[in-house]
């Protein structure tokens, strides 16, 4: 009860602070969306539509009090809106209507809110605050999971985080992906944090969080998490200007993992090489085969939660009778989108990822030689690595409609709009000498 009352107080406090500006309510929504107080508290908040209330307040306050200089319509905006309309259309003729509307209800929130975010999050301060809130909210799960992994060694399917239900970050593969994509953002904050003043303590804090994140991903014993960690390491290494140093750091971390990982972790990871002979991988391959058959039958998509109708047949050569499994998950964001929303939906999803990558590349290119915008250049690089992680992990887990993807899409748009406004304003208002000074930094 104390925990529930405390979280209710925190929710009301965040709501109260948010009333001073729409961007603060937007950050409050991000906290609710990542921390999930309704799943962490045991009483009161589970019965309150916390996400809906703060999300509506954020959009409403923006519409009533703000509405100035909205961002330009980008490819990301257009594709997301078309995607929202398309997934609504596919839900109308879903093969599993009831669960389809249930998933539509939460998926549509992530997608629509990602369209709204660039309207409220515009300045450097607001963009940094968004990342701080995202990372700190993630930390609420990383700290307990990471510490308990260090103490106990973790375990596949073992609930060590804050959320014990089998949803959102209660699912270990989703938690591991969210944690891994947070690593580039934590490293970014070590260099560029300003809201939390830079110093030894914040550096130790973010650095410790990176180590706990690695412990968490190892502790989940999820194979997708290992693939995500490798993708994150590869992306960070490619972006780094100190490749030798970073290679040595990664080698040291690798040695520490090898030396400390329990036998159960090695057993799980070694099963990757067994391919179709491993039970879990065999189910995935069968499920993806089933999805291709499904999309051949429903090229415009079978609607959300179509996997519930799946029937997988496993021949048993020795025993004769085949074994059947029903309602297995897609085990891949790409097959999830393809099966649920057909080829058109799949194309929109890939286009969103592509548009986001191109936007971030464009920001990085525009800010490369502007020391005053070094933070934007580094953030674009960090978000690229985060997107690489979520795409890589997403190939093996069904997170196609989780906010993990859509927050990165939204932040890409925010960052691009910020850089465009700065460069336009500098060009339009400042004389050449002061323009060069301002962009060159203090």
């Amino acid at each position, binding site marked *: 009860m104390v925990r529930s009352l405390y979280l209710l107080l925190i929710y009301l406090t965040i709501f109260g602070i948010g009333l001073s500006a729409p961007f603060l309510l937007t950050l409050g929504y991000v906290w609710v969306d990542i921390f999930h107080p309704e799943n962490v508290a045991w009483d009161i908040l589970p019965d309150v539509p916390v996400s809906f209330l703060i999300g509506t307040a954020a959009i409403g306050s923006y519409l009533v009090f703000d509405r100035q*200089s909205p961002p330009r319509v980008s490819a990301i905006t257009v594709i997301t809106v078309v995607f929202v309309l398309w997934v609504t259309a596919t839900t109308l003729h879903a093969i599993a209507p009831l669960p389809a509307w249930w998933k539509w209800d939460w998926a549509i929130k992530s997608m629509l809110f990602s369209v709204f975010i660039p309207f409220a999050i515009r*300045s450097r301060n607001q963009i940094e605050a968004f990342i701080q809130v995202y990372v700190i909210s993630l930390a609420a799960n990383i*700290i*307990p999971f990471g510490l308990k992994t260090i103490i106990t060694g973790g375990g596949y399917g073992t609930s060590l985080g804050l959320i014990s239900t089998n949803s959102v970050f209660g699912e270990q593969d989703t938690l591991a992906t969210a944690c891994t994509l947070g690593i580039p953002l934590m490293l970014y904050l070590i260099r560029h944090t300003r809201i939390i003043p830079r110093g030894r303590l914040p550096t130790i804090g973010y650095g410790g969080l990176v180590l706990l994140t690695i412990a968490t991903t190892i502790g989940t014993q999820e194979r997708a998490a290992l693939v995500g960690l490798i993708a994150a390491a590869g992306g960070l290494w490619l972006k780094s200007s100190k490749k030798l140093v970073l290679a040595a750091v990664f080698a040291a971390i690798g040695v520490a993992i090898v030396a400390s990982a329990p036998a159960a972790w090695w057993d799980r990871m070694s099963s990757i090489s067994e391919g179709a002979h491993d039970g879990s991988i065999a189910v995935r391959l069968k499920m993806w085969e089933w999805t291709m058959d499904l999309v051949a039958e429903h090229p415009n998509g079978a609607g959300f939660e179509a996997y519930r109708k799946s029937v997988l047949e496993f021949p048993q050569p020795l025993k004769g009778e085949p074994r059947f499994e029903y309602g297995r998950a897609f085990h891949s964001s790409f097959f999830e989108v393809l099966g649920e929303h057909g080829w058109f939906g799949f194309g929109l999803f890939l286009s969103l990822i592509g548009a986001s990558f191109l936007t971030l590349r464009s920001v990085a290119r525009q800010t490369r030689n502007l020391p005053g915008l070094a933070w934007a250049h580094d953030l674009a690089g960090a978000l690229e690595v985060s997107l690489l992680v979520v795409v890589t992990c997403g190939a093996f887990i069904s997170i196609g409609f989780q906010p993990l993807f859509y927050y990165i899409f939204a932040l890409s748009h925010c960052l691009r709009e*910020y850089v465009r406004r700065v460069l336009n304003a500098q060009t339009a208002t400042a004389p050449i000498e002061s323009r060069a000074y301002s962009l060159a930094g203090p």
Partner: protein
Amino acid sequence: MIDTFAIVTTTLAVIYVLLRAAAFDRTLPWFETGETPFKSDIDAPRSNADPMQSSKTRAL
């Protein structure tokens, strides 16, 4: 114990970030690019102030 520690520290940190971000939002010019705000930028709010943030926004 560990769970409680995580809940308390992270929620308080989020509130701290929101309060600091709110304070910065009122004082920093919106497109300042340096590591610390320039005195000249703050002294010249109309040239550098956030054209997207009206007083109405701040007094919401």
